[in-house]
């Protein structure tokens, strides 16, 4: 009889497929993730750029989402706006000053579940040596096995920040103070 129950349990688990277990850790896969930003130009258009080098981890606790955690580190000198001269200016002392501040980081402090697919992740964002609280609106994209059988979980986070809050005040308002940030992250379960 015990054997019968055990086989039923194993069958259920087998059909359930790969699921996110209690407090799983994920490492962001940079090849399938993107960090992009948008900034206004003279009030007439938007310029998009991206950071090519970044890393991070996140932890998912299905039983208690408030225990979820996110850490992201972005190399500021990897900024790319499809204009090398402009990138040089952005890396300079008027904007990111990458020679003195080589990274921007986000460390979550709290996670609030809005619905099954939507979360609000609040954390400390550090840019140019200034740390301020920032809330990311996070959308679950999906989860499942990757091409090599590894388990993946995909998310997309958006937020808008004022760069002047981080002492990046040059050329405001000609170059907008508000910067939209979008992080599309695919994590590989560790």
């Amino acid at each position, binding site marked *: 009889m015990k054997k019968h129950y055990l086989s039923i349990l194993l069958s259920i688990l087998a059909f359930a497929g790969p699921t996110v277990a209690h407090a799983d850790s994920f490492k962001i896969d940079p090849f399938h993730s993107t960090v992009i930003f948008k900034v206004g*130009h*003279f009030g007439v258009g938007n310029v998009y750029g991206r950071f090519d080098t970044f890393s991070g981890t996140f932890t998912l606790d299905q039983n208690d989402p408030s225990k979820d955690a996110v850490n992201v580190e972005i190399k500021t000198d990897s900024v790319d706006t499809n*204009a090398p*001269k*402009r990138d*040089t*200016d*952005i890396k*300079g*002392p*008027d904007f990111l*000053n990458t*020679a*003195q*501040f080589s990274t921007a980081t986000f460390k979550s402090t709290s996670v609030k579940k809005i619905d099954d697919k939507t979360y609000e992740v609040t954390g400390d964002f550090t840019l*140019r*040596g*200034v740390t301020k609280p920032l809330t990311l609106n996070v959308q679950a994209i999906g989860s499942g096995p990757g091409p090599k059988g590894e388990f993946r979980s995909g998310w997309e986070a958006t937020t808008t920040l004022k760069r*002047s809050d981080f*002492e990046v*005040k*040059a*050329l*405001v*308002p*000609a*170059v907008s103070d508000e910067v939209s940030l979008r992080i599309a992250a695919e994590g590989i379960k560790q």
Partner: protein
Amino acid sequence: MNQLVVQSLQGVGLPSLAVLIASAVWFAVFRKHPRVRAIGIGLIFAGGIIWAYLLAFGGLAFPPRESGQWIPYLAGVVALVGCLQAIRLGRRVSNLVLSLGTALIFFCSQISGNPLALVWIIGVTIALFLSAILLQQLIEDRCSGAELSLSLALSAGAGGIVIFLGGSAVLGQLSGSIGAILGVIAVLAFFFNVTVGAVLPLVYLFIFACLLLSGCLFAQLPWLTAVLLWIAPWGLVIGQRVDHPQISSRTKDLLIRMLSVIALVAIAIGSAFLLTPPSSEL
């Protein structure tokens, strides 16, 4: 008018106007009191730099986290030290401390894990210390107020152009503002036929050093351009008579004596155009 142009004009014009009024009053009242005049004009100059910084950077950062954010504090400290020097403080020791402090602003954070930073600290300290002594003793003692201020104004003004070309509009604006402020002081010194003392060149020296170092280390300002601008004011001593210090600014030869300064500044600007990659349109 373009927003950027308006902002830049305000950033350069407002501090210059304030310095014009304050300096004119100070020169008029203390025309026959060189020590008080030197202290006052040094403090007015430092105040103008701080206001120009506030307009360019949009405020003070406290505590300063990066080299450029030290500029307004350094201006105040150097002006105070200069005032104390004018009273009784020894120049050599205080200039050495200021030089070391300025070098540490740029390289202190890199000491751990980068032995080269120590070399930089020593090199910058020596360069600043020698420059301060030379500027205060050699040039200041042998030049009229108009000559000295005008040569510093040309260097700082050209600094504004080359730092802007090097990719930093904000630092360029600040350097341009300092150039305009010094230009205003030069005109007044010529009009009142007075010297400006040793406080003003001391403030100029450390703040302009910060701007040039920031331009070279964090933007794309060529080192050659920075060095040429740095040495340009020393061109004043060329052709001067050792036995005849304190040449009047009212001589018609003022501009001729300025020629070496103008030539060095022109070469510096030319080198920036040749060596700096063209700036982007943000």
